[in-house]
């Protein structure tokens, strides 16, 4: 952590502790989010390992029932809200200004406030272990189990208050990101030239902006039920527990896309560079992302098929759930099309991206299976669903984040992570991930319910549970290899350049380091600088060299860029390969 401080602090004069507490710099805040998120990733992983240890053999005695309930609830809450979302926010913070050519995000102080509110919410939620027990009602906290009748401890209060605080932080961060991407693009950076990663960020921001208030209302009602004696979710008094499920999943399903879309964006950045080809079907992948965002709000009740919605809602939500598989499939074929015929460089980032596609496809297919209410009824609350969610979130979101870490680490710290250790890390995690979660499909079909803290021998679940536990230890080893890699790398000198070996090298003078970024996940290779956008008009591939060269011939200008007067005339004259911003920096 201390070493990471030194590397990123080049953007500001001071790098002491005080500057980290008071910083409003997007790169530093990005680093804070990343490091905090990774620490919580380790904590949630530790909880997962404890869960798997308990389930390794029948009638396990490692955890008792109550602690087990706390652990699986906190594992989910920590992974979702304190690990994957902040690690996504870390990349958002770092790369939004770079990829759109802005100085910083639109509201730097709001950005810092978002982080510190996030941290306090995270501490409050996690500290529940010390104050009478953590939440134990599952991450979606179904009522009436979590209402005052059946949950008398304080754990669920931490759940409600913690999520309200974290929701406030996410809302502020999302508003900030959305305004930044809409309003702070460099001249020439039109919406249809935005790197795909920026598009995914924009969709994620709007998903959160529009779904978080619904969760807030649900949490407020649960809080009133628990604290002030109302009866929103208590059926004897005229309340309705199903209402909680609706309110939660109107948030909860868009939230799933909040977790996966950033990784989809990362893969869209990595694969073109590593295949030395522009992204296949840019507009298709952008519209597919937007379609996922819109349809994501119309599928929530597929979590509730077994509650007896009636035939018409079931038909609607079944159809919409199948429909949302289409844009997801479009993206997968776009990534395959990007790699097809490319001169692929097998870096660790490539490995993780390809791993993402494979594992996410498995999770996606088992997801579409549950679009069918009869099948969903069989799988509901079984380990099959656990397998599905982990293929999507571990095989999808986490693999994508690791791809992004290996791809962008040189840009963020100036140092290249070790490729050999990286590939070892990938193979251990990839194999162990499948060893852990694939048997859960079998367990689910064999009737093992999720969230049971132990089981008797002779039910046919012993073997696969043991295998899954071995796999969980394997994942832990893989993560340890990554941590070793991180600390070894941070001791090495900073050798990375502006687009360090990952993006195509632009011929001609480069703009100042860390102020611009080249992305190939657009129709053209796009470089945003603070004063303009360079869009390539031609591609040259050199298979013999490790980078491809794209020549920036004529920066295109749009109407808005004419307001820039002097700079625009510079860029309009430069028919050579000079970047418009290079003269200024």
């Amino acid at each position, binding site marked *: 952590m201390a070493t990471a401080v030194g590397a990123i602090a080049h953007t500001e004069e001071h790098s002491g502790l005080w500057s980290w507490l008071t910083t409003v710099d997007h790169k530093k805040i990005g680093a804070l989010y990343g490091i905090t998120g990774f620490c919580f990733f380790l904590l949630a992983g530790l909880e997962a390992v404890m869960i798997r240890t308990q389930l390794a053999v029948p009638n396990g005695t490692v955890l008792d029932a109550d602690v087990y309930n706390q652990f699986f609830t906190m594992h989910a809450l920590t992974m979702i809200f304190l690990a994957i979302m902040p690690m996504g926010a870390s990349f958002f913070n770092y790369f939004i200004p770079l990829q759109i050519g802005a100085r910083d995000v*639109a*509201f730097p102080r709001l950005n810092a406030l978002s982080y510190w509110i996030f941290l306090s919410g995270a501490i409050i939620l996690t500290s529940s272990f010390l104050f009478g027990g953590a939440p134990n009602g599952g991450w979606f906290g179904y009522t009436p189990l979590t209402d005052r009748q059946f949950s008398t401890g304080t754990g669920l209060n931490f759940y409600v208050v913690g999520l309200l605080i974290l929701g406030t932080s996410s*809302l502020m961060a999302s*508003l*900030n990101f*959305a*305004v930044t991407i*809409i*309003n*702070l*693009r460099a001249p020439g*950076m039109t919406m249809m030239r935005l790197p795909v990663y920026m598009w995914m960020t924009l969709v994620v921001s709007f998903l959160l*902006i*529009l*779904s*978080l*208030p*619904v969760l*807030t*209302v*649900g949490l*407020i*009602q649960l809080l*009133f039920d628990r604290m*002030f*004696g*109302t*009866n*929103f979710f208590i059926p004897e*008094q*005229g*309340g*309705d527990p199903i*209402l909680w499920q609706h*309110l939660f999943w*109107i948030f909860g399903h868009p939230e799933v896309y909040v977790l996966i879309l950033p990784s989809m964006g990362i893969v869209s950045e990595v694969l073109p560079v590593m295949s030395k080809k522009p992204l296949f079907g840019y507009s298709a992948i952008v519209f597919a992302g937007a379609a996922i965002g819109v349809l994501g709000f119309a599928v929530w009740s597929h979590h509730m098929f077994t509650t007896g919605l009636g035939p018409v809602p079931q038909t609607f939500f079944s159809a919409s759930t199948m429909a949302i598989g289409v844009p997801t499939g479009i993206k997968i074929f776009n990534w395959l099309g990007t790699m097809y015929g490319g001169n692929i460089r097998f870096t660790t980032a490539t490995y993780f991206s390809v791993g993402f596609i494979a594992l996410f496809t498995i999770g996606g297919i088992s997801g579409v299976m549950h679009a069918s209410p009869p099948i969903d009824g069989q799988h509901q609350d079984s380990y099959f669903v656990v397998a599905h969610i982990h293929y999507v979130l571990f095989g999808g979101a986490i693999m994508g984040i690791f791809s992004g870490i290996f791809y962008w680490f040189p840009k963020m710290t100036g140092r290249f992570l070790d490729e050999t250790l990286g590939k070892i890390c990938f193979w251990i995690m990839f194999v162990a991930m499948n060893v852990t979660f694939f048997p859960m499909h079998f367990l689910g079909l064999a009737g093992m319910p999720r969230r049971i803290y132990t089981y008797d021998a002779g039910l046919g679940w012993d073997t696969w549970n043991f295998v899954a536990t071995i796999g969980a230890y394997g994942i832990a080893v893989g993560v340890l290899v990554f941590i070793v890699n991180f600390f070894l790398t941070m001791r090495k000198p900073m050798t990375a350049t502006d687009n360090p070996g990952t993006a195509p090298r632009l011929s001609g003078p480069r703009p100042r380091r860390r102020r611009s970024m080249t992305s190939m996940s657009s129709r053209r290779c796009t470089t945003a600088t603070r004063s303009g956008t360079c869009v390539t008009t031609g591609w040259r591939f050199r298979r013999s060299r490790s980078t491809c060269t794209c020549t920036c011939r004529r920066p295109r200008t749009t109407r*808005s860029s004419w*307001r*820039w*007067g*002097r*700079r625009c005339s510079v860029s309009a004259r430069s028919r050579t390969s000079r970047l418009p911003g290079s003269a200024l920096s």
Partner: protein
Amino acid sequence: MAVAGHEMEHHTTTGIDHRKLLMWIFLASECLFFGALISTYLIFRNDSIVGPYPDEILNIPVTSTSTFVLLMSSLTMVLAVYGAQHGRVVMMRTMLLATIVLGIAFLGFQTYEFRSFGAEGLVPSTNQFGATFFVLTGFHGTHVGVGILYLTSLLLASFRRTGLGRERALHVDIAGLYWHFVDIVWIVIFTIIYLMPQH
């Protein structure tokens, strides 16, 4: 160069100021917030097991008056924005003060209503009407209260030596967006709770 740097500070891609765009997107989020609260009210509208029921307890004349007060505050808000935009600082201050006073009056009506309901035995835990009514109108009242603090901060800031600065009109305009939104939400709430017939 200094001029170019100055332009750079204020340049936005869409031409809309960041803060104004933020407020618009935030209000979109608020729509979902009140949408969920109002939906809950409608879902539980006829689910009260014990009284008092809404048609027994709602005092429509009083609340119509408070609705009128809140609507008038939108008028004074518009005039405050007009004053800010046209450099008529005294008008802006007067109208901001009027908006604040009308907002406080609305909250006074709401306090009176809550207290009289309490006296007649309706509290949040009484029945579904009590729970949904108090949570919905209570959060609306909270929004009015936040708006009053917001406008008060603008009013006090306008008495500084530099006033509200060069972006005076923008600051008041953004506050106006929020205030009008809270007003519009009340019109929906008033229609649904007080004017729609029960059963």
